[in-house]
């Protein structure tokens, strides 16, 4: 009875599998739609609260605008202010706002909004990354609806430039609070939707004050992994990658007639940062020894495939005042050894090189390590996450060397910041910088800037490697994207397609919902039947033990996660946070409360269904989890059914004639299949079906709202990659179990009564062998939900595994705790269901102690 119910359910589901594969309509995008690839997900969408480049990529000049803006050539252009005047002494600025500018909520932009934005950014507890640059402002006054005055304590030469940067875009006091999750600005695009871990969607703002955007809709898709970026592009899922993360693939893409590869420059000075405050690096001879040991060209060749301009100080090569100092310390390992000897380290110096995640750091790091080793340094590489980098390197200055790119434009002021992680202090530098900030004459400014560059190189503060190039890759028919990146951001107002592509219709949303409901109801009904079969007393006893396990687990999980170094507040605020702002945010997150209270708040909420609010995404954790489970649960289910669909026939065929050729071949195949790591298989599947044959999407997930079959197509390859190894396990277990059952007396009885071998196998042996197999499937389901992280990232799927991995990297304790506890609960719950299945079949289990 039961088995037939299960097999009937299975059969019904299995009917969908070929259907899913058969339904492969090609999907194009409407003329006005664009899908942009992003390597990192924005921590939030409020550019006034984070220095994350990903946030700027989405909102700068698209959703939000400043008084001024930076154009592609690096010049400052009017934006919300259509002109401005500066008093002769350089202390008074007057900005005249453009008429007829509306926020996306319909309200009118006024001078008061400008005052509010800038005052908020410059106050003591401001979390604005540019907070420090506004310290010379003493007053901001709206003069009338469209005029605003800014008064300075001393002249600031680049104020108009600073105001063009993405962190100082104008917001309205009424809507700034929601900017983290649903930003409201004045730009040519307005925010529509953010699917966490997957995409951010913008649409054209029909009421824009300037020339309207040419695109109707823009989707930023988050693709953290270089391979997925390439396959996504080749498979046609991504239209444009303004910052392509894999220079090694550029040659291949260039050969492809569908794409343009455009190489520009960024403001990213990529450097080996030296801890100048720590011995032996406080000795300039040791720092010079480092500099002489480095062969920039080999690094640019090896790590960047020849892209990138070598630099020798902290200014970008396209700046007018740039001075090429890359030959200041030519590659000379012998000289390096000599310097070390002079400094008193004849047997070398041991150093730790801490590398953050970006590809340029990790790849350069390996080469740097081998070059340093050749010059007598003993190098240890430590790859760390961003949260750790921010905590250990940036905040606590606990490092010898690190490699990082400083992408803020004109950020030479960092060398005079009192507690910056370089540990560099020079009164002369500070004084030169001060003079520079008061100097307006371009020629004089250029000289001063060159003095600064020379001084940094002479002091050998860091070893500058190269200016980070910008690899723009997009479809040939796309025009208007920027080649250069003089400012963080992906400006889309002028982007357009020069041909028309038709769009495919999506399936109905109703079908998805209905199917979801049917599955849920069926599941609940099944549980109810199980409970009744197993008996109330037994169920209660098991439930009690389950709750105790969960409470124990919650304490362990909480404690373990608490041990993690690094915190969410530091991660969110990034590299330019002030200590006051950091403390403010920690208080806001409740990180200052005693531990037991933090635990109690969490666990009491957990059982009431309130999981708190994610630190980084600023949305309820429960919402995030449900969003991710709506992908992970169906994916796990699909993989499991696929695995069963493959394994059961294989095992039956093998068991039909033990030791036959079929049995041996299936045994060998499953043995090999079992040995293939699923991520390798995933990669091979992508290469074959998405890039080669182009019949299935390479990754991403459009959400179930886009239609059942449309969405399910995106799950076919991941499900296959997960299912094949599981199918091999399952098939072997079932085959062994069938072998065992076939030896039993009742089989002999059945045979004796004249049942044919096929009938004996299917009607007598199979149902009996199925129950132990279900135990394995239960375990597999739990594994498939939580253990698919790598496969999820290869396919850029926003699943629960990746949510947990990202939350860990971002130190989002709220999300981590609840997800882990939920996963633990899933495993324990699935085990319980399997036990109940057993108990409902076998009365002996019900009566005895279940352990």
């Amino acid at each position: 009875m039961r088995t037939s119910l299960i097999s009937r359910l299975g059969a019904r589901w299995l009917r969908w599998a070929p259907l899913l594969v058969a339904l492969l309509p090609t999907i194009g995008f409407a003329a006005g739609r664009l899908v942009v690839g992003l390597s990192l997900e924005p921590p939030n969408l409020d550019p006034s609260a984070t220095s994350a480049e990903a946030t700027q990529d989405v909102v700068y000049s698209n959703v939000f605008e400043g008084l001024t803006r930076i154009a592609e050539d690096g010049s400052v252009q009017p934006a919300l202010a259509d002109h401005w005047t500066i008093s002769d002494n350089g202390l008074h600025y007057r900005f005249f706002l453009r008429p007829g500018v509306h926020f996306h909520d319909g309200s009118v932009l006024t001078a008061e909004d400008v005052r509010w934005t800038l005052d908020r950014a410059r106050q003591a507890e401001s979390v604005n990354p540019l907070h420090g640059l506004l310290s010379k402002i003493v007053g901001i006054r709206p003069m009338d609806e469209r005029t605003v005055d800014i008064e300075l304590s001393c002249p600031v030469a680049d104020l108009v430039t600073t105001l063009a940067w993405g962190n100082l875009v104008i917001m309205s006091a009424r809507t700034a609070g929601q900017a983290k999750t649903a930003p409201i600005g004045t730009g040519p695009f307005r925010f529509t939707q953010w699917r966490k871990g997957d995409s951010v969607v913008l649409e054209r703002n029909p009421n824009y004050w300037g020339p309207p955007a040419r695109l109707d809709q823009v989707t930023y898709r988050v693709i953290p992994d270089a391979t997925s970026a390439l396959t996504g592009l080749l498979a046609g899922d991504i239209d444009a990658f303004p910052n392509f993360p894999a220079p090694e693939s550029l040659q291949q893409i260039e050969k492809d007639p569908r794409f343009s590869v455009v190489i520009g420059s960024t403001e990213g000075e990529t450097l080996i940062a030296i801890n100048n405050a720590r011995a032996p690096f406080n000795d300039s001879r040791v720092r010079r020894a480092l500099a002489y040991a480095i062969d920039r060209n080999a690094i640019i060749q090896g790590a960047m495939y020849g892209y990138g301009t070598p630099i020798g100080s902290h200014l970008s090569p396209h700046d007018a005042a740039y001075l090429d100092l890359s030959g200041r310390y030519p590659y000379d390992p012998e000289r390096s050894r000599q310097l070390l000897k002079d400094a008193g380290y004849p047997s070398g110096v041991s150093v730790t090189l801490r590398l953050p995640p970006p590809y340029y750091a990790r790849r350069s790091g390996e080469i740097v390590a081998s070059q340093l080793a050749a010059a007598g340094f003993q190098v240890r590489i430590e790859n760390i996450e961003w949260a750790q980098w921010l905590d250990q390197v940036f905040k606590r200055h606990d490092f010898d060397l690190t490699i990082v790119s400083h992408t803020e434009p004109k950020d030479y002021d960092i060398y005079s910041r009192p507690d910056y992680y370089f540990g560099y202090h020079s009164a002369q530098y500070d004084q030169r910088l001060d003079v520079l900030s008061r100097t307006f004459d371009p020629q004089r400014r250029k000289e001063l800037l060159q003095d600064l560059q020379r001084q940094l190189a002479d002091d050998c503060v860091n070893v500058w490697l190269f200016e980070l190039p910008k690899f723009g890759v997009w479809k040939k028919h796309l025009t208007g994207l920027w080649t250069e990146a003089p400012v963080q951001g992906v400006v889309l107002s002028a982007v357009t397609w020069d041909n028309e592509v038709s769009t495919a219709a999506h399936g109905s949303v109703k079908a998805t919902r209905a199917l979801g409901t049917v599955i849920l109801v069926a599941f609940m009904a099944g549980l109810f039947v199980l409970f009744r079969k197993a008996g109330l007393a037994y169920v209660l006893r098991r439930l009690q033990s389950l709750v105790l396990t969960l409470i124990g687990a919650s304490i362990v999980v909480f404690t373990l996660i608490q041990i993690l170094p690094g915190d969410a507040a530091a991660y969110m605020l990034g590299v330019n946070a002030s200590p006051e702002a950091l403390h403010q945010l920690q208080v806001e997150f409740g990180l200052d409360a005693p531990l037991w209270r933090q635990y109690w708040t969490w666990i009491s909420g957990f059982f009431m269904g309130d999981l708190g609010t994610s630190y980084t995404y600023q949305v309820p954790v429960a919402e995030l989890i449900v969003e991710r489970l709506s992908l992970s649960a169906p994916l796990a289910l699909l993989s499991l059914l696929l695995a069963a669909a493959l394994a059961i026939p294989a095992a039956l065929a093998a068991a039909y004639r033990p030791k036959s050729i079929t049995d041996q071949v299936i045994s060998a195949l499953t043995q090999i299949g079992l040995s293939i790591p699923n991520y390798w298989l995933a990669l091979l599947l992508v290469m074959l079906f998405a890039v080669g044959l182009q019949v299935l999407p390479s990754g991403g997930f459009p959400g179930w709202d886009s239609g059942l079959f449309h969405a399910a197509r995106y799950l076919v390859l991941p499900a296959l990659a997960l299912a094949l190894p599981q199918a091999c396990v399952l098939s072997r277990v079932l085959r062994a179990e069938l072998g065992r059952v076939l030896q039993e007396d009742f089989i002999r009885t059945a045979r004796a009564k004249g049942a044919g071998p096929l009938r004996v196998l299917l009607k007598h042996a199979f149902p009996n062998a199925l129950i132990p197999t279900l135990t394995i499937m239960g375990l597999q389901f739990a594994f498939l939900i939580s253990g698919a992280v790598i496969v999820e990232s290869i396919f850029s799927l926003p699943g629960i595994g990746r949510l947990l991995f990202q939350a860990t990297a971002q130190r989002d304790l709220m999300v981590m705790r609840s997800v882990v506890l939920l996963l633990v609960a899933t495993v324990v719950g699935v085990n319980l269901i399997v036990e109940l299945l057993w108990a409902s079949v076998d009365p002996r289990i019900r009566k005895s102690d279940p352990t």
Partner: protein
Amino acid sequence: MNTLTRFSRGERFGGLFLTILMIAGIIASLGFLDDGVAIDISRRLLAPSSAHWMGTDALGRDVLSLICAGAASSLGIGILAVLLGAAVGIPLGLVTAAKGGLISEAVSRGGDLVFAFPSLLLAVLLTAVLGPGAKTTILAIAVFNVPVFARLVRGQCLSLMSRDFILSARMSNRSTAAIAFDHLLPNVAGLIVIQIALQASLAIVAESGLSYVGLGVQPPFASWGRMLADAQSLVSVAPWLVAFPGSALMLAVLSFNLIADAVSRRWSDRTPRLDA
């Protein structure tokens, strides 16, 4: 007689391949392959040839040398992690089986928790606290092996506890520890060997997975998982970078599985004699 004929085909293949890998790993760790493993930009991305049998990678390292060096990390970490897990898990299983009661309950609940805990997260946690490297990787994998062995040993021992020879040992007033080690352990030894081989195959996959996401052994030490991760975006330019390390990984896993399979077949052939 030829001793090799006593072994099955699976054992011969598995044993041979693992031996080759181990020798390769030792050769690499002794520094004989340092030339091949060294970064040399001038010879990058060369296709397989007589000079570089498996080609070179993006930094000009010889893939064959890297695979040999990676074998040292992969096998070393995999086997050590499993042995460490077994060394903790087996006594735990024996004691809980012999004693029962509250300790037994606590240990098996703890095991449930470890099984349910997302493995990658534990690795991230350990790495954040201890720093990345081989030791952390061994520890992270070992933790998941402890309950596997504890559970296996406990389950087997519980079924042995009611057998006559244990009852007679009990009646002769032998201590719990003596019963556990003298009577229970020898009877589960075979199963433990099978499990060690199986777990080693899983541990190798786990190690490559951790290296793949950047948590395992750190450069300059080679690792198959990291080789695969590095190779991914080069797959159409340099397919050999995906093919060779992936195959090495697969064959190593297969070898352990085949050995486990063969031993377990041998063991199940032997079991009836034990019962008699």
